[in-house]
């Protein structure tokens, strides 16, 4: 909150924050609905999960919802203040999703051992694909943000 939300720099930051938050929320939602509930690869609770894993899981569960809703309201705020293109937003969404995926695949799954991606012998392949997807999302998002942000900065209101 270094610069007021109405300023040009403040709006750019807010657009970035909005997209990253929404991306984290969407990634957390996909994780919950696709991998937990549809595929049943992940376990609700693997029973060997240590306390730190439970706390981290609970936090990201709550934070995911907050980020989804809050991110969209921040985007609405940037729009109503007007004067800048919101085209770079999708790049920020991809970065947020990739960042969460990377965190989930390394810290949550491995360091905190909340649960594994799938309970199979060749887990390494799943982990590798998970991380490559995370890096692609991050890289693609950053590229899109830079590309659109430069254009957006010159776009008329």
């Amino acid at each position, binding site marked *: 909150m270094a610069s007021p939300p109405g300023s040009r720099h403040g709006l750019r930051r807010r657009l970035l924050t909005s997209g990253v938050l929404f991306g984290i929320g969407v990634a957390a939602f996909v994780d919950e609905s696709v991998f937990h509930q549809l595929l049943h690869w992940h376990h609700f609770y693997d029973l060997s999960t240590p306390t730190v894993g*439970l706390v981290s*899981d609970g936090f990201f*569960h709550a934070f995911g919802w*907050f980020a989804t809703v809050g991110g969209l309201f921040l985007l609405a705020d940037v729009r109503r203040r007007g004067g800048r293109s919101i085209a770079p937003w999708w790049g920020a969404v991809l970065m947020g999703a990739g960042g969460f995926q990377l965190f989930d695949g390394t810290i949550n799954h491995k360091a905190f051992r909340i649960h594994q991606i799938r309970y199979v012998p060749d887990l390494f392949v799943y982990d590798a694909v998970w991380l490559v997807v995370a890096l692609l999302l991050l890289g693609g998002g950053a590229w899109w943000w830079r590309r659109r942000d430069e254009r957006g900065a010159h776009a008329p209101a």
Partner: protein
Amino acid sequence: MHPHDAGAPVDLTGPVLGGALLVLLAGYLAAIAVSRRRGRPWPAWRTACAEAGVGVAAVAVAPVAAVGGFVAHMWAHLLLGMLAPILLVLAAPVTLALRALPAARARRLSRFLASRPIRVLTHPAVAGTLDAGGLWLLYGTGLYAAMHHDPGLHLLVHAHVLAAGWLFTASVLRVDPDPHPVGHRTRALVLLAFLTLHAILAKHLYAHPPTGVPEAQAQAGAQLMYYGGDYIDVALLVLFCLDWYRRTAPTRASAPAAHPA
């Protein structure tokens, strides 16, 4: 234990809590009539929220909710402690009371609301601790098992679930006149902490069933608490963000401040 009190102990919760809510609703409707007589109509949607809130809470404390074990209990918990409070907060009962009461009594109510104890109690961190703390006590100690043999304790626990849920929701949304404003950032952090504790408690219950609850029931109840809580949480989050969005509206030079201090 006597055979006749093992099956169906006397239910105090339904009659007492349900009765108290109906009295409150009657007062609410009477206040609308007074306000209308004074030429100040009351929004119909707020009335609908009050009625729905009382209805949802009444379903949660209905005697049928007591049969069906831990899963039914968890349904009642979600309705009584989370959904009904949101509706009751949106009903803005304090705003209505201030309109309907005679001037002297309205002033006394305002002074009471501005007092230090109310300031402490309506801080989201305090209200959230009362709410989450009560849940941890209920499921983490022998309280859950004990209340099923003691109708008075059962009533007390359910009254606490409703009152603490109501207080916490009110402290986060701050719909009624607010003599002790708390910033959106503080409220957001407390809400995030509360939702985190709720999710952790749900998973904890999955692995550590409360005394007397079979494992399968505990697991089904825990998942209901986790995922069912989500739907209600999203409504709470949208309402909270909507409040932020409205109060931070960029003001045009001529527009009056949205939020007089």
